[in-house]
């Protein structure tokens, strides 16, 4: 089992997201994360999917998704030729005495405190998955109340894979 990051460009038609996720569920493919958002051209949506499986399955995923009528393009975002980012919000329980400790950890990771309450605070961190996991790991010393992650988005480096929209 390995993970692969796919970048999709799809027509922004009604139901397009359910067509894609429906394909994954009926063929028994695994989605680790999926994000979708409109592109500079509102006719198109860009979707980033992290899928897991063995090599054959991952190749099949690419072909089956490409076959969907609404899908304009799918390609792999190779780790060495792309940048990935994920945004994560962590709510940590913290009494006033412990607050400074959390802030110190957040500073090291260039995370931002975006909400402070009497007994908790919310930290926002952006980065690749290893950074976020390391950050969450360090916060284990405190009591993590809730975590919300977006799943990754990514783009290929350079102009090689750019699809110029008409």
């Amino acid at each position, binding site marked *: 089992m390995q993970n692969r990051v796919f970048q999709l460009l*799809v*027509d922004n038609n*009604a*139901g397009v997201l359910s067509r894609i996720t*429906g*394909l994954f569920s009926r063929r028994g493919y695994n989605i680790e994360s999926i994000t979708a958002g409109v592109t500079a051209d509102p006719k198109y949506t860009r979707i980033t999917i992290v899928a897991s499986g063995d090599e054959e399955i991952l190749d*099949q995923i690419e072909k089956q998704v490409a*076959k969907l*009528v609404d899908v*304009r393009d799918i390609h792999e975002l190779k780790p060495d030729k792309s940048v990935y980012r994920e945004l994560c919000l962590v709510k940590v329980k913290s009494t006033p005495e412990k607050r400074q400790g959390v802030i110190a950890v957040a500073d090291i990771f260039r995370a931002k405190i975006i909400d402070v309450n009497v007994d908790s605070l919310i930290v926002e961190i952006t980065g690749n998955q290893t950074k976020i996991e390391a950050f969450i790991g360090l916060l284990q010393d405190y009591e993590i109340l809730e975590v919300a992650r977006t799943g990754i988005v990514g783009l290929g480096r350079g102009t090689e894979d750019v699809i110029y929209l008409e």
Partner: protein
Amino acid sequence: MIGADAMVKCLENEGVTTVYGYPGVAICPFYNSIISSGIKTVLVRTEQNAAHAASGEARVTGKVGVCAVTSGPGATNLITGIATAFADSIPMVCISGQVKSELIGSDVFQEADITGAVESFIKYSYLVKNADDIPRIFKEAFYIANSGRKGPVLIDVPQDIQEAAVRNFKYPEEVNIRTYKPTIKGHAVQIKKVIKELEKAKRPIICAGGGVHLSNAVPELREFAHKYRIPVVNTMMGIGVMRTDDPMYFGMVGNNGKAYANRAMNEADLIIMVGARVADRAISQPDLIFTNKILVHIDVDPAEIGKNVGPTIPLVGDAKHIFDDFANQEFECEHEEWIKTLEEYRKDMVKVRKPNPDYVDPAGFITMLSKEMKDNAVYVADVGQNQIWSCNYHIVKDGRFLTSGGMGTMGYSIPAAMGAKRGDMSRQVVAVCGDGSFQMSMMELATIMQHNIPVKIIVIRNNYLGMVRQFQHFNYKDNYSVVDIKDGSPNLEKLSAAYGIPYIRVENMSHALEKIKEFLKDDTTTLMECIVDPMDLV
């Protein structure tokens, strides 16, 4: 002009001549419009059979079959027909009425989310939200259905959209779907590679699937096989690609096929799979069969290549184009010894049946029947033991062999035969079903009589759901569970009389030929019942 008129105009622009269907309130505007057009309507007796009929017509004409049903239960009844067409890649446009736009999602009378329900076994579907979109959507739907890997497309049209005004109806001349561009032409480098391997091969074989029929590449494939003397086998969907009596033809592969065809595949050093999925019933252990040989996989659907087996040379494209390209290559190859070997296998590895003389022997009967059938006749096999007998003992000349191969949908043969006959009234069409599958679509006898569609129907009667009984015989030690249909099955002679259909009964082989001749003597609907040994196995 209103939406419903626009829908009918779209069908006229596409050259549609027949719409199979069943009306209801939500599709009434459409049926109100179609009656004053030149398009014929065929009123089936249940919606599933409208889809099968459209499928049968599409397979004979190569054009898109069309059916139209109402919302809710009308649409859900269509589902099996859509799944059947999808599994066999049959081009079809299904039109369903839908409740009024503003009521969608509120669970009103006869509302069902049909586009959602069919999502996983349809090529594409539309829910029309604006009547002005009708021309574009219909144009796209017909194009999607009949291009690339063909398949069914559904257009769900709410009642208010069918009644809404359409300004400036203009049927688009071209389709431009940014996201859908099927590959038709094979890659030149890959084609060269195939030819190079063919030159080296000592034991090449072509395994043809249903895709060869769908791309209308039968003449090209036959010419190629003859010119370079390459033996041909086929899958169930590929039956008819070669004439059965063609010296280069070596039978159907698979666990229900000919032993000599499977042996040929095993011993080949180069296999050209064309328009075939490497499906489980055709090739049960792809890993074993393809080791130590070159596999060329030709398919218009790139996702099929490498799905079940990794090919040595993948070749994406339409079979007709690719065989045209092959024909333009100069090369020579020589494998007379291989052909001789296969000819010996074909002679020696014939399955010997021991038919019970008290009954009709289905194998002998089907061979006898197909010899008497016209050269370009259409033989429609149903699903069950009858299907396997049909595959193995039907002699194809220049006609077609239609069956539900991928989905194995019982009850397919009678409605599909209706569609096939309407697709080409000059051809003889014979539906062959079992007594189980017959009872799944016998209500269509009414449609056949109402619309005067002269199809010949054969019911192979063994008083069992024979295929399941056979499975229980081998796998459950003869513990026959829920397969006996003797009690309750109708008297077919009386049933035929009730519909006004001539009836012929065959009880053993001694009078079979005479009865077959009587059965086929003219172009009228006739029902023939063949009594076979209930314990017979395929």
